[in-house]
């Protein structure tokens, strides 16, 4: 079987929706962060696939991927800082815990 564009697109769409599903259903902050990373990486996969199969003489998709990876790292760093701070204050990494604004 030849692996073609469709296979990769199906894979990336699956990953993307696993990410969305995980983000919406998980309560643990670390799992939510992982779901977001999954979404970003599925977009990466799409960029690479389109670049290879649809626009083989261009490089923009590849470069976009590099930028996404760098930004995702920056975002993860900020996320870890926020999560650690939340853990210290609320003694939990559960997203349902911080609800003091819902009076």
């Amino acid at each position, binding site marked *: 079987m030849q692996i073609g564009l469709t296979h990769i697109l199906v894979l990336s769409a699956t990953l993307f929706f696993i990410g969305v599903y995980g983000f919406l259903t998980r309560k643990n902050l670390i799992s939510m962060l992982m779901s977001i990373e999954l979404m970003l990486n599925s977009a990466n996969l799409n960029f690479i696939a389109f670049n290879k199969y649809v626009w083989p003489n261009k490089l923009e998709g590849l470069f976009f991927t590099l930028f996404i990876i760098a930004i995702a*790292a920056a975002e993860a760093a900020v996320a870890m800082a926020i999560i650690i701070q939340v853990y210290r204050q609320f003694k939990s990494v559960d997203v349902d815990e911080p609800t003091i604004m819902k009076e």
Partner: protein
Amino acid sequence: MIQYLLQVTNTHSADSSFWYLPVGVQFIFAIVFVAAMMGLTHFLGPKRKTSDKLETFASGIKTHGDARQPMAIKYFLVAILFVLFDVEVIFFYPYAVNFKSLGWDGFMAVLMFVAFFLAGFIYIIKKGALNWED
């Protein structure tokens, strides 16, 4: 094998799986090497079975508690900083591939990138983020 490595021309297309042969060879070499080394140490090394040896190994210090206890924040800090500085290096890859055609303009751009990078590094050192002892 020798023929494969020394050939000058070939008839295979660029997409052919033929080009994965070196990767396969490397895989086999890695597995054989690891297996051989482990086997050799197993047969050659001396064996003394004592109760101390069955304990968890913690870099030589005495073990205490289980693994699920809060760790010092310094570990997280160093790990996050490492990830940041590690990932930013990704921008050197496209430059490294094209650095001749980009010329001095490209070099100046990368120099600027490195300067910002270095500013960040000096900043975290000055802030004491890498000081292990308080």
